[in-house]
């Protein structure tokens, strides 16, 4: 089937960071350089081609940008400086926007102001909310951790609120959004492709890939450069630790162990990794830090902010500066909530969902394709003999 070239796609992608893709003349050095590029997913060349020619539909159904972890080798090797690594990155941004049905993602990606404004608005709202929550529950701003809602559960219950249900509503909202978007991603890349026709058992066969890739980022470790993977996994584990602290706090009301040990550790990991990445991006130290979209910078600033405020809160609490600790706590939440409500479902952070799914779908597709080619090969054998 013929596909129509869309002359505006390139212009659009420029807003996502694909500035240099037109320089590419398809020598294929990038695909040859990339250690992750393997049959049947040979990238980044072909994706660059789709983009150059304005084949939006082809690009939308393309998993390849997600299979790239942006070590930057391709950009280093490119004879035309077409920045294939950055182009793949911008395609990931664009895909995130395409997967999102609300259109907010597109808005945030295409407009720095919109993203920043959304973060500020949500941040201020959540600052006010958490202050009110602490104040209304009778918390004393000078004592720590008394101002923190979980510690005054009785009062909230009296008000008819349940912090857990508030958190639950938020979680359902975010997960619901992401769930719908992942379903869209599945439909664009795999579900709508009649030529694949994936049987159910293949879906089941590879299902564990999702958590496996989520937690290990095994594929990232296969890049030739190992440092980015280390930084990334520290950042990721920092968030996982933070999430564990949060769960411990919410579910088991355990503030001693988790809070005392895991919390600061997570904070240090976050601050360390994000400040490393930030300084890399600001100084453009490595290929993958050379080009920064506002979504990248905003995300890192937020990470650093959340990490720093969390650490400060903890230290202030430990040394007995209750008011400062509570202030830091409010600030911490002013960072964390926008991250969860804006960056997780709509912008940079969404990749934590899409990427493991992309690995999963890619494995499914590869399996189907290999099976089909195997079958073809089998039928070809007797044919050959008769000839």
């Amino acid at each position, binding site marked *: 089937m013929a596909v129509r070239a869309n002359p505006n796609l390139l212009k659009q992608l420029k807003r996502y960071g694909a500035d240099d893709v*037109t320089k*590419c003349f398809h020598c294929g050095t990038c695909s040859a350089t990339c250690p992750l590029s393997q049959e049947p997913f040979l990238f980044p060349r072909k994706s660059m081609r789709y983009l150059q020619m304005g084949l939006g539909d082809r690009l939308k159904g393309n998993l390849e940008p997600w299979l790239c972890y942006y070590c930057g080798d391709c950009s280093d090797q490119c004879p035309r400086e077409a920045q294939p690594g950055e182009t793949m990155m911008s395609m990931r941004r664009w895909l995130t926007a395409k997967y999102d049905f609300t259109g907010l993602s597109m808005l945030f990606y295409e407009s720095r102001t919109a993203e920043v404004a959304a973060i500020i608005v949500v941040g201020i709202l959540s600052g006010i909310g958490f202050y009110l929550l602490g104040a209304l529950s009778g918390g004393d701003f000078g004592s720590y951790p008394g101002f923190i809602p979980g510690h005054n559960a009785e009062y909230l219950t009296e008000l008819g609120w349940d912090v857990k249900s508030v958190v639950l509503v938020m979680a359902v909202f975010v997960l619901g959004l992401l769930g719908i978007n992942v379903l869209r991603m599945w439909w664009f890349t795999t579900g709508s492709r009649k030529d694949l026709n994936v049987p159910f058992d293949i879906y089941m066969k590879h299902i564990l890939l999702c958590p496996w890739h989520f937690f290990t980022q095994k594929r990232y470790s296969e890049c030739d450069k190992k440092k980015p993977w280390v930084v990334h996994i520290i950042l990721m584990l920092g968030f996982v630790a933070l999430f564990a602290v949060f769960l411990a706090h919410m579910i088991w009301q355990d503030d001693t162990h988790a809070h005392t040990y895991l919390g600061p550790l997570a904070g240090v990991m976050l601050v360390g990794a994000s400040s490393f990445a930030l300084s890399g991006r600001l100084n453009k130290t490595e290929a993958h830090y050379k080009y920064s979209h506002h979504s990248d910078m905003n995300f890192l600033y937020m990470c650093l902010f959340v990490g720093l405020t969390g650490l400060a809160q903890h230290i202030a609490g430990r040394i007995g500066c209750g008011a400062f600790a509570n202030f830091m706590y409010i600030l911490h939440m002013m960072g964390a909530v926008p991250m969860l409500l804006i960056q997780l479902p709509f912008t940079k952070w969404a990749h934590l969902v899409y990427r493991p799914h992309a690995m999963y779908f890619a494995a499914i597709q590869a399996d189907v394709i290999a099976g089909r080619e195997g079958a073809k090969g089998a039928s070809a054998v007797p044919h050959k003999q008769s000839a």
Partner: protein
Amino acid sequence: MTTECKIGVYVCSCGTNIGKMVDCDAVTGYTKNLPGVAVCKSYKYMCSNPGQEMIVKDIQRYGLDRVVVAACSPRMHEPTFRAAISHGGLNPYYLEMANIREQCSWVHDDHQQATDKAKALTCAAVKRVPFHEPFDMQSVPMNSASLVIGGGVAGLTAALELADANQPVYLVEKDGKLGGNLARIDLTSPYLDSAKDLLAERICRVTKNPKITVMLNSEVESISGYVGNFKAQIKSNGEAVTDIEIGSIIVCTGFREFDASKVGEYGYGRFPNVVTSFDLEKMLKEGRVVMKDGKTPKYVTIINCVGSRSGKYNRYCSRVCCMTALKYANGIKSAAPDAFITNLYTDMNAFGKGCEDFYRRSAERDTIFMMFDKHAPPTVSAAGKGEHFNMLVKVNEILSGEEVEIPADMVVLMVGMEAREDSMNVARLVNISRDKDGWFIESHPKLDPVATSTDGVFIAGACASPKDIPDTVAQARATTARILAKICQGEIWVEPVYAEINEDLCSGCRVCNELCPYSAIDYDPVKKRSAIISVMCKSCGGCVAGCPSGAIKARHFTDKQIFEQIEGVLEWASSRA
């Protein structure tokens, strides 16, 4: 021509190139016993200095009068060994080479058979060489005037170069004005300089230079004579005939564009907004790129290789179209900044100085490049109803494997270059050859690119093959360098290998007269004999084989020499049987 010849035979093993497949010692052992062989040696590299010195010394020590070198192709080292034996005091034509590398060791994989064949070839050379005759170079005077055919950029450059060296030039142009194809062009790629600026200065200097006789609306009627001594008749305005005498001729007749209407799928002539590169060039010169209805196009598709690199039309690459297409992409971008430009190509040839950079810059200006397979060219069709553009170009894009539809308001066909329709006449007029596409053939494609098989006739520019302006100008200047060198010498040395008619055997039957492609055979009606003008003869030997009386001898390729070779290659073979 004696059996008492003393032949030195030298078998080269060329490192391992020959030695690995051919048993050189066996060849030497066999050759040693052939009649007339005084000395036979094998050496690692005969062409090396020690190798050549060995021959030189042997000539003196053994009193050799003929030398056979069994080594590489004579096309490779015949000049080397001729010089060597000449250094040793022998006439250079007393050499014969046996090609046991390119036509033996490199192409066979059986040691025994390769060695046998090397023996046969060496035997043939040993049998031939006693019949070699000595020759000396011959000289003729040189007329310093030159005739330049064609007033394009090549002709103008060549004329100026010669006139600046104070030599008279006749510049003959068929058209009513100078400038040729370059005058049809707006800007040049890749630096986007104005073609007009390039030309105006040259035309002005040419018309003012007293050494240059410009003849417009003129054609060369006939040419006779030979290098250094040509006579030409120039017909001007269809009637007046001028006779001129010149020593050299430069042919720079240029090219014509491919007829785009031959390619049906592009719809040239069917769709008003499908235009050729020269049509667009006209628009660009007028400063307005518009569709037939006067509107500015929003979608422009440029199709490269129209008539070039195709199995159906011309197989060759026209070389300049890729960069010209980029020039258009830039030009249209400037005229219509919002236009969406697609360039469909088969292979982007950005070989020249500044060209790769130009390609890159054009890509950065958002020209979309799509590659198509030359066997499946794109098609142009009318757009469907309700579309906001008027044509749809369909292409099988091979870098993505997708069949893509591109909206188009205007389609530009990059028509290739073709040999001019009158190139056959020109070739006949000046006695040069054309290749299958009609381009004039150079003497050697790499080492002698502006000379031709006819001494004194040179070719420059796009009449020899598609060429860009820098190459054309470089060639034009190269021709003048060749000519000025000969003028400086004052006389011309000509190879002594030619055919000659034995007057005692010629009966004046005139069978040979029409056979000479160079009109080098002259018939004397009084003596009733034909004779060959040796400086005009190129030694093809067509008349020799055609002479029914056996009166014509091809120097260095006599019947006797070839008979000996035939016997040589077969003698050894029969001894095996």
